[in-house]
């Protein structure tokens, strides 16, 4: 009986079949149980051996059942889990997450670099006095330099600032050297709108006034910025340029990030891209703000922001930034 039972248990196809077999053999009326009950009717000398044999059988069957039960259970979980299978390639369900605007993110990145370089970021007004935008920055009255910055006027003496540099005099009036500040924001110029021009653009402007500030400090600062912004291979090129509020004045170019300085279409073969206007703060500007230009010197620089993400992401049309097509914004 033992062999047949063990074989049947080993072949049981399901937990239910196994349960039935367990009852058949070991249940209250099971074959093994019935055998055990027979003991009483056996002669006393046979009882011990018989009892021993039946108990062994019982144990053997119990072991077989529990072994089979485990095997079956494992199989049945597999079946159950198999039924729960999902198509992992179906799309996830979630709400649309938000992203930063690429230009604001660039502004933040630039701001962080200057904070690391020890600048204090200050807020600055966009609706500005003519005086702060031009006169205080040493723009002579009736000078063609003003033509390069055609302004939108609100009243006779209020205009939309044409450069973030307009905050310079305000800062100098309210502080004492050493001054090391930076501002960022919108600027406006009368300019026809196309892929590379707009009436509104963003600038960053930094300046330092202290004892012993040199043009080499200016160059080193912009070099540091270029490396942080464009990577360790970036370099800067300084060449003379004119802005009324600085003297000596410079135009600053960085290594073309497209070709790495070898020369390409974007940099017109020069290997350099114009980045910033810069220079040593003109003594007239310092003196106009009550700072002794003999005792103190300073440098200032400013640049447009739009160009940077345009180069970094290969964006060919400036207008995309403010058009806010979500298909564009969600890519960056």
């Amino acid at each position, binding site marked *: 009986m033992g062999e047949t039972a063990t074989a049947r248990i080993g072949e049981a196809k399901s937990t239910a079949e196994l349960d039935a077999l367990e009852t058949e053999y070991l249940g209250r009326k099971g074959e093994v149980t019935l055998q055990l009950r027979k003991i009483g009717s056996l002669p006393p000398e046979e009882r011990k051996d018989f009892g021993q044999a039946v108990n062994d059988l019982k144990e053997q069957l119990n072991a077989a059942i529990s072994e089979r039960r485990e095997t079956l259970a494992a199989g049945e979980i597999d079946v159950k889990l198999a039924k729960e299978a999902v198509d992992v390639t179906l799309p996830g369900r*979630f709400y649309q997450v938000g992203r930063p605007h690429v230009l604001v993110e660039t502004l*933040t990145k630039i701001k962080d670099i200057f904070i690391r370089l020890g*600048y204090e970021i200050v807020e600055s007004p*966009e*609706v500005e006095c003519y005086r702060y935008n031009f006169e205080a920055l040493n723009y002579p009255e009736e000078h*063609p330099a003003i033509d390069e910055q055609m302004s939108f006027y*609100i*009243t006779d003496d209020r205009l*939309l600032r044409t450069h973030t540099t307009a905050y310079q005099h305000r800062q100098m009036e309210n502080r004492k050297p050493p001054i090391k500040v930076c501002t960022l924001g919108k600027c406006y110029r009368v300019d026809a709108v196309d892929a590379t021009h707009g009436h509104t653009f963003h600038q960053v402007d930094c300046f330092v006034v202290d004892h012993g500030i040199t043009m080499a400090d200016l160059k080193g600062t912009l070099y540091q910025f270029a490396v942080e912004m464009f990577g360790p291979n970036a370099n800067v090129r300084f060449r003379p340029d004119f802005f009324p509020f600085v*003297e000596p004045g410079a135009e600053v170019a960085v290594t073309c990030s497209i070709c790495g300085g070898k020369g390409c279409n974007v940099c017109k073969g020069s290997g350099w891209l114009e980045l910033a206007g810069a220079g040593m703060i003109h003594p007239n500007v310092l003196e106009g703000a009550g700072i002794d230009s003999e005792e103190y010197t300073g440098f200032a620089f400013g640049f447009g922001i739009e160009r940077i993400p345009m180069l970094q992401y290969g964006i060919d049309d400036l207008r995309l930034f403010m058009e806010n097509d979500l298909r564009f914004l969600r890519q960056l």
Partner: protein
Amino acid sequence: MKVSTKWLKDYLDYDCSLGELARKLTMAGLEVEEIKEIEGDTIFDVKVTPNRGDWLSIVGVAREAAPLVGSRLKMPSPQVDGSGPAAADLIDISIDDPDLCGRYVGVMIRNVEIKESPEWMKERLTAAGMRPINNIVDITNYVMLELGQPLHAFDYSLLRGSRIIVRRAKPGESIVSLDDVERKLEPDMLVIADIERPVAIAGVMGGSDSEISSQTKDILLESANFTSTSIRRTSKRLGMVTESSYRFERGVDPSITAIAAMRAAELMRDLAGGEVARGLVDVRPRPVEPWIVETRPARVNAVLGTDLDAGVMADYLNGWEIETSISDGKLISKVPTFRQDITREIDIVEEVGRGYGYENLACTLPRTQQQGKDSPEGLFRERVRRILMSCGGQEVLTHSMVDSKLAELAGRSELVLNVRNPLSEDLDSMRVALIPGLLLVLQRNQAYGTVNANIFEIGKIYFSKADGGMGEKLSVAGAMAGSLWKSNWSLSADALKVDFFLCKGVVESLLDSLGISSVRFVETSDPLLHPTRAAKILVGETEIGFMGEVSPDVHEKLDLRERACVYELDFCALMKSTPDVLRYNPLPRYPALYRHIAVVVSDEVKYESVAGVIKRSGEGMIEDVDLLDVYRGEQIGAGKSSLTISMVFRSPDKTLKDEEVNSVLDKVKEALGAEVGASFR
């Protein structure tokens, strides 16, 4: 300005390649923007900065290049021996307004033959972008390009009274300029007049009735030095920018006046067969002589961050014809009259810097050491940005200069700042709120096929003040429409469909994340918002913004497909409402018990009152009240709602028993019945 390098060769010998020459000029500050090959010549397109009027000629460029290529300028020296009558006997010149004209030179050339210019001259003019006209006019233009001195040739026979008077225009005067347009003159404009009428707008353009024609025989050639600011003002006022006005605005060398006149006379003799009268008339009420600028070499090094020897500095300066010697350890520079940009020490510092080469300057960092930091607004702005993005908001950046109709749409026309000289009608004002611009973004994206959107912006809005002043301040606003799901297959789209409450959820999440408590939403009205789905947002007693569904009117005007919801908060008010320091509350030590009740109240009763009654009557045991469902239907009768509310009961110092909670719940129900007329289902 276009510079023929072939022409340049007339005044400068150089061995380097044109590419090298272009690089040297660029690095010295005279940027060669483009190099163009034309037949037999190479043209540099150079960008002349507004301070360097002296670069606006071939000679000027040659002078700049000379020390860069180790050469010297070969200045043209006209050789003219006059004959016949003296110029002074043929023409009488006087300057009535010497403040506007420092020098006026007149030369007489008689019996010229008007014809075409020779090919070489036409080529050079064309290369410079000028149109050849006839030999006389071409010569005036040629000499202007060569030496930078604008010239004008009058037909002598058409000048009345053989007189030239340089004076301000008289009231009511006008002139027909060479381009055949009648120009009304204003009394502060300088004119060249004969005894009867103006014959030229000084430094801008000649008059047509004294113009050179094929009949012209005798010429009065004008070479003058007019005051920059006056020419600029006149040119702007009349809307006329000419080669002449462009140069005068940037300053013309007062020492070149007579040389240029003689150079033109020489060419008229050679190319038009003219007889140059003896002498010239040179009226010079304000002679200009070279001036002295003293410079401390130590100062130069201190500004540039260099360690240059005074002798080296002097060499750079002398290379550019700024005669410099060293005396008492100082650089003593005699500044030539064409360098009107050099008036003080700092200008000399720049010249030395240019001579040394900016590319040779070292890279150092300023000694100013301070801890960098963001502005308080900047720091807070970053926080708000991050929170709104985590609420699914896509950041956008919109224009501040907008159509004033948007202020009307927002019902805030009285606040609007108008732009006086807008580029176009739809850019005639500064925005008074962010919402209208955000709605336009929704509209535009709808047109591009993107209807589902949740956008926000932190930016400035601008306003006029009652006292006539104007201001600007930061604002935080959002707009959303459609569904906020990115993908929700098999799930209800409605679960994240934009409505008042979803929008409110974003605002609440923002305020909650900032740690702002005691926030209330109170019905309000706003021209932008739906009349019965609008709320103002109060923190304590301070109103910090508003939110709601966009008004049906605005909705229709913008043709939005989905109902949009918006919010706009005052950035500074939000910042002020945000606690500087957050304190932690110890986590509860005892378990909570939960109860739900269905409260039936009439529709006039606000949820806020129901929740308030529950909290107040909960004997301090109710930790949290939350709304699970709002049901309206026949079962509970018209005009009523059933609010399913869950409550969390907890005591800070013991484990609550069911009986305790039930007894409190009874009291809560009793209070709800008494205070808001609630019944229970």
